[in-house]
């Protein structure tokens, strides 16, 4: 089973939930941090990294001698990554999405797949938990291809927790698509509610069943709880604001390791998710 943890709004506690859930699963579990722009789960899991790979994307490599300057490649490219000006052909690899259209269109066979480095993937372990995350190269714009690569590194026979990026656009889609359940983490504030509504719509479009965790559940107002009741989204956990939790978080200490009662609550959360995915009531 793959459980993704998403939120719409940033800073609501996705990483807190994802790391604590993964740690409470015991052995035979894995955590994949797909927030490749701002990967933080490793700061809590503190895995021993065992391997690192560089991730690249295909970009056009044009053989200047073979190129006839016909302009077919430029005509196909939707992303303005190739420009022919008079006798010169230029590529803008950072704009390329790697579709291969230019290569297929070139009648002279002058284009090969080159490479653009988009980031790295690191693999590690912590007490039997498998850990993998991606780190987007600073200056690289495209997170989704790296997120898809991180996703492809998870082992299908293990229970997987995915820490997703905030928002509702392509990086989130890449992180939560084809997961069995999405845990939406929010806070009971107007910003939390506004962005939760967007996240719920995203989950609906992708047809993923969802459940809600309300973090800092006593800091705001009741509109998030009312919305969840109206939309019939199960509230699976409420985490009250406690300065001790916030301080433990600030030091990179997972909630389940500092407060033993929270380990039991996260185990119950996983049992509830299993039941919901199986179509049982909780």
């Amino acid at each position: 089973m793959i459980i993704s943890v998403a939120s719409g709004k940033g800073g609501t506690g996705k990483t807190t939930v994802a790391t604590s859930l993964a740690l409470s699963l015991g052995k035979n579990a894995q955590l994949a941090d797909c927030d490749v722009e701002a990967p933080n789960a490793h700061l809590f899991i503190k895995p021993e990294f065992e391997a690192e790979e560089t991730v690249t994307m295909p970009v056009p490599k044009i053989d200047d001698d073979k190129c006839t300057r016909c302009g077919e490649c430029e005509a196909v490219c939707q992303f303005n990554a190739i420009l022919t000006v008079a006798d010169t052909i230029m590529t803008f690899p950072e704009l390329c999405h790697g579709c291969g259209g230019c290569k297929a269109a070139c009648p002279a066979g002058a284009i090969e797949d080159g490479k653009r480095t988009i980031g790295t993937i690191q693999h590690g372990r912590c007490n039997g938990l498998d850990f993998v995350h991606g780190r987007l190269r600073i200056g690289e714009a495209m997170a989704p291809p790296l997120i898809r690569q991180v996703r492809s590194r998870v082992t299908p026979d293990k229970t997987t927790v995915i820490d997703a990026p905030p928002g509702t656009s392509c990086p989130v889609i890449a992180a939560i698509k084809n997961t069995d359940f999405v845990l939406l983490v929010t806070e009971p504030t107007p910003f939390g509610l506004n962005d939760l509504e967007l996240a719920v719509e995203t989950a609906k479009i992708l047809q993923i069943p969802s459940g809600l965790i309300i973090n800092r559940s006593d800091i705001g107002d009741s509109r998030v709880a009312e919305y969840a009741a109206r939309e019939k989204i199960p509230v699976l956990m409420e985490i009250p604001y406690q300065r001790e939790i916030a301080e433990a978080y600030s030091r990179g200490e997972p909630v389940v390791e500092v407060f033993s009662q929270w380990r039991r609550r996260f185990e119950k959360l996983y049992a509830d998710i299993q039941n919901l995915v199986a179509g049982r009531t909780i």
Partner: protein
Amino acid sequence: MKELVVISGKGGSGKTSMVAALSQIANNPVLCDADVDAADLHLILSPQVKESHEFMAGHTARINPELCTGCGKCVEMCRWNAISADFVVDPIECEGCGVCYYFCEQGAVEFPENLSGHWYISDCRFGPMVHAKLGIAEENSGKLVSLVRKEAGKIAEANGHEMVITDGPPGVGCPVIAAIGGASAVLVVTEPSVSGRHDMERVVDLAAHFSVPAMVCINKYDLNQSASDGILRFAQERGVPFAGRVPFDPAMTQSMVKAQTLFEYDPDSPACAAVREVWAQVLKRI
């Protein structure tokens, strides 16, 4: 005309609350919400929309079953696995590259432009505001970010506003790159936690990569004093001006619940004094 873009790397560090507060104490600013993916500034500033525009960007392929002969070329060429075995395009997976459209020998692939969202020119109680709403699960957020910034800049130039204050998106990818390019300065709002620190370092690197001057301020600094000290040392070592620190103050959340800026909710709160000091530092540096 200057543009200050407020970013953070990590989400939830207080960017939008900071921008809303600065909106009130800045002298005649234009406001711009460049977090088009999960825009929240309008929840505080309650803009009255004067102009609404469609945002058309990118294309999505659609296969006409009447014309499709099932040759399979599109499935074979699509690098996104967006076309099913029975030749239906998944619009979510479709990258909009047009490869299927260009290479279909039957002309069975349609490739219409997408309505990806909307953008607005509005008035709010502190001045003109440009904001947008990207459609759910849409792409091209970078283009929309560039567009709202450009429009905010035009309004400022045309009406003699000296400052655009832009609420930026989280992360370091496409929308953030679009949000900071060419800005006068970025103000990085961070928090004293391992995550806040880690992501702050990444956006400081990003700003340096694109040669945009950065400043750093800490929100909720008293939550972890030693982490705050570490951020201050980092800023000094990197030569990044330190713009100040705001204490943890329940007024931050309470003002948001009331749809007010910090200064409207409680002008005497400790956070207000600190935000004034941050603004004074920003004005000195920008």
